């Protein structure tokens, strides 16, 4: 091997680069981190991610910028982050729908399981099965029984959302005639059930309306009970084989250094478990639900499989 000017330059360059690569995770973070939010500014996902970012800045010692990339129910932002450099400087605060609902339905240009590393889950609004206060149905069982003799309509936040798919699977298993009516967002579905235009609705943010006596909560779609309403059963407790777990978590593009992931998981978990964050989320009417990155990955994997099966049954 003869040393030309070019090879020596290459050698020099590699010497110069090696230590940077080796110690990247120790220096991390050395510049501002971007957290992409797949929804518009001002929604609950955005507000909670911004609070998370503000508080984690102090722990990590670098500014955290929140960038909104709304559109296509969150899949645009997921695709962009999946393609971003896995250097720990681009993260995403995401929810159930772009993580395991939409990808189960059609090609979205990314695979949640192979293109992302989950860091932690920190929230997730409970979705309730609600009926008007004067509804004849007092329990989930009564609702399902009622739907066997006549059509029961239920509203959700949109076509092919997690809530719709969960109830579609219930309808298939039980033979109940549950007619889905998709609305443009959860608040319109809530308005429709309040006005009596649909028999039931599967919506989050029901707490005040239920406590106020305008709506009756029959059950929750999540895997666990809502601590505000411990008596409302999960679908599984009511003997129905379906659930729609609601997640709000942070993920990084696949290929990110495990040491960086560990550092981020520790920092974000510290923030999420603080009293200050809990108070903030309570004011926002959002629960704090902490899951480790590994648990979040398992939840996403299980539900992706379950939702693919449901979507297949629905003929998609």
């Amino acid at each position, binding site marked *: 091997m003869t040393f030309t000017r070019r090879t020596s330059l290459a050698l020099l360059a590699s010497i110069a680069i090696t230590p940077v690569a080796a110690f990247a995770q120790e220096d991390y973070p050395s510049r501002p981190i971007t957290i992409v939010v797949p929804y*518009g*500014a*001002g*929604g609950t996902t955005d507000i909670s991610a911004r609070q998370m970012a503000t508080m984690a800045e102090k722990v990590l010692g670098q500014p955290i910028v929140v*960038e*909104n*990339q*709304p*559109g*296509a129910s969150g*899949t*645009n932002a997921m*695709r962009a982050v999946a393609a971003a450099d896995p250097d720990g400087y681009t993260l995403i605060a995401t929810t159930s729908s772009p993580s395991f609902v939409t990808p189960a*339905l*059609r090609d*979205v*240009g990314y695979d949640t399981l192979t293109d992302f590393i989950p860091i932690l889950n920190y929230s997730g609004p409970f979705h309730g099965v609600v009926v008007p206060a004067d509804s004849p149905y007092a329990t989930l069982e009564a609702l399902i029984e009622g739907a066997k003799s006549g*059509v029961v*309509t239920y509203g959700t936040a*949109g*076509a*092919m959302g997690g809530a719709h798919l969960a109830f579609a699977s219930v309808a298939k298993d039980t033979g109940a005639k549950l*007619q*889905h*009516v*998709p*609305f*443009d*967002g959860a*608040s*319109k579905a*809530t*308005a*429709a059930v*309040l*006005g*009596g*235009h*649909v028999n039931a609705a599967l919506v989050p943010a029901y707490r005040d309306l239920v406590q106020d006596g305008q709506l009756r909560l029959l059950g929750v779609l999540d895997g666990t009970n809502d601590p505000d309403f411990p008596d409302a059963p999960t679908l599984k407790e009511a003997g129905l084989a379906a659930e729609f777990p609601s997640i709000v978590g942070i993920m990084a593009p696949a290929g990110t250094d495990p040491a960086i992931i560990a550092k981020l998981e520790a920092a974000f978990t510290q923030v999420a478990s603080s009293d200050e964050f809990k108070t903030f989320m309570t004011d926002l009417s959002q629960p704090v639900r902490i899951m480790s990155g590994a648990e979040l990955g398992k939840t996403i994997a299980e539900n992706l499989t379950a939702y693919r099966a449901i979507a297949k049954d629905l003929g998609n």
Partner: protein
Amino acid sequence: MLVDAFLELLNLWVLVAALVGIVAGIIIGAIPGLGPTMAIALLIPVTFSMEPIPAIILLLGVYQGAIFGGSISAVLLNVPGTPSSAATAIDGFAMARRGEGGRALRFALYASVFGNIFSCLVLMALAEPLARFALDFGPAEMAMLMLFALLVIVLFGGGSRLDALIMVLVGACAGIVGLDPISGTPRFTFGSFAFENGFQLIPVLIGLFAMSEVLLQAFDREPLVGDAEVPPLKSSVVRFVELWRMRVTLLLSSLIGTFVGILPGIGSTVPAFMSYNLARSRSADAAQFGKGAPEGVAAPEAANNAVTGGALVPTLALGIPGDAVTAVILGAFMLHGLAPGPFLFRDHGLEVYAIFEALLLSSIPTVILGLLFFRVAIHVTRIQPRHLLPAITILAIFGAFSVNNSLFDVWVMLGAGVLGFLFRRAGFPLPPLLIGLILGAPFEQSLRQALLTSGGGYGIFVGSPITIGLVALIGLSLAISLTLSLRKPRT
């Protein structure tokens, strides 16, 4: 509630937003050829990072300022900045040629403020009760209401009904692109992820109203305003007694403006001419109209300003915009997380009442700034739009991109601009297209939701008192429209 909302306004940023908005509006409106819709469409992206209250106040300030600014160029140059100030130009320009331009502008200003205050009070009285009523509006009721709105803009929007119908249908067809609202399957997306969200309202708006104007003026060889002699502006005063004498005219014109504004889809040109004609027929000295009667300036100005408050009633209570401008403001409300409908007043009552009060109080700075700007306005009207076209283009591209940080939206904006240019060049009106785009998709969704809840039965569309009332209104407007066109002598 009213006091708490007022306290929200005691914020430096709110004041800055209101003043900046009004000044920007007066300037943009005074430039011949640039109107309020374009001004708001261009400024929405600027408000993205602002708090909701100052953001909306800025936009409403722009709107109020631009309407008054439009009357400046109408009075001084006989070039209405907006179609709705065309009625103002008739007597306003006649007064200006007599050397009474300053008086005409003062009448226009005071009448605008009167109309604005009147309609704002009506808005505050009606919007919340109507919103409470909104829970009764299920899918079937919404479908019939939107059908009525689309029908009204076609039948009574002014101009050719066929043109308006074509434009509404073009808009509704553009609304089909994206995910099917009921089954969630992609429609006309050509396998592209970018199309799944459909065409976003704000890029389309910016394209239709700002970009098309740029293209229109760039391809138009004749300048809109030559180096016409601006009539001299003598210092003058309008005494309160003179306004008191036309109190009935002001009141009737504001009533017409407000209630025509509540009807979705008509806009402000029709009420401006309606109240001009009414003022003339009621006047003891009708011969003066057209030759420079102050009442001929005051009547249309009171009416076209009163439209805003009226048009905001269905916009905020039901999410159905009354005209192009409220459609833009509706977009701004949604962008800032204030979703119209039954929960708007429950969840965001403070913000909404703060905005109402700001709308009411902004009359004070409008009068002060308006009076200050008379002198400057003469120079502003001499600005040739062509000097502003590059800046508008840059703002339009920047604005379209910043909605979702996506380049696709920029292409949508440019596409809408070219399409809008072609349509305007061919003489088609753009507001029906916008209303068609905004109401098309929700109309389809409500119609199909209603049929899902009824199990496919069409009886649901006459199944409640509200739907029966709306069907009656639809029948009535068809009948009125038919009789009017039969009675009109064919020429």
